[in-house]
């Protein structure tokens, strides 16, 4: 396979192609047996790399004895500094497992949004933003390393629709999402 097709295949699997490019590439895929086999193999490898990353993260977690020592040290430190503690932001249990949450736009908004914002997912290498119109057709797909995406001037948003931000992990796989968030503007 030449480099251009390889790049297109990888961009396609990363969700980096816009809807038209994605459609064109799928037609190419369905017309070419070897490209399809490459796509399947690539998906299989990504899955295995992702599994390896999960297992390594799990194995890196310290054992019980280390946790007990850390807990004891943390308790001492806590009691030593508790009286000088500044007002802190609340920390919720299980925060590390939270999927990103939509911040804006959500529901009916006063102005045409030019930026889509969501909360951080600690496991994210990047995020994929997708915007859909009312019929459910995808009007934009873009990736962002940050928890927001600013629309470029050329894009005309549908007056109502929905959007979704998906966490992309270190091997390029979408793992969690905000779910579809409706928006509407006058």
């Amino acid at each position: 396979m030449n480099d251009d097709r390889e790049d297109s295949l990888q961009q396609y699997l990363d969700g980096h192609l816009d809807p038209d490019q994605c459609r064109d590439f799928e037609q190419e895929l369905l017309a070419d047996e070897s490209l399809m086999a490459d796509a399947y193999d690539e998906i299989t490898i990504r899955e295995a790399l992702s599994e390896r990353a999960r297992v390594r993260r799990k194995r890196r977690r310290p054992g019980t004895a280390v946790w007990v020592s850390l807990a004891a040290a943390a308790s001492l430190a806590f009691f030593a500094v508790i009286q000088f503690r500044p007002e802190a932001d609340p920390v919720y249990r299980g925060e590390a497992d939270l999927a990103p949450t939509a911040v804006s736009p959500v529901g009916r908004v006063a102005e045409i949004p030019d930026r889509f914002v969501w909360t951080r997912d600690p496991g994210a290498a990047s995020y994929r933003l997708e915007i859909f119109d009312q019929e459910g057709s995808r009007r934009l797909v873009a990736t962002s390393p940050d928890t927001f995406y600013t629309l470029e001037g050329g894009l005309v948003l549908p007056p109502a629709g929905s959007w979704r931000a998906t966490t992309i992990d270190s091997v390029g796989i979408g793992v969690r999402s905000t779910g579809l968030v409706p928006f509407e503007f006058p």
Partner: protein
Amino acid sequence: MERARESWLEDLRRHMLGIAARRVPVDEAEDLVQKALQVIVERGDAASDGRPPVAWCLQVLRNVIGNHYRRTATRNRLLDRSVAPETLSRPLESLDTEQRLRTIEEGLAELAAGDDNCGRYLQRMADGEPAREIARDEGLDSNALYQRLYRCRRKLRDILRQKGVLP
């Protein structure tokens, strides 16, 4: 519209059959593809979570083939049946977790021996480092890093094919 969908599914079925038949005997391949298509038709776009449609369908097929191998391995264990390994193709999906991880480790090590940049990039990505940090450390912009990663993944794919785990 319905006709276009049918023709799309028929193309997909043909490709899936080709892929499955390189991993399991042809009669089993037909059953597995049928199962995968059933999931695809029943669950449709709702389950794809924004992934491109064909990629999602291939992921479904991979899962169906993986489940088939797991079930077969369990059945053989329960019946105390052993199968001569040389008579079987051994695709990545058929290996148990430890074997699969070992195969991937060997592939990455071989890749790093031939191209230490590739070894380093993929290792750091697999360790969960964000792409933008890797790009910054390597003095690359994100596009250049992704492009290099694409080439590296392709090399890894070639290595795994030579090992016979991607038939």
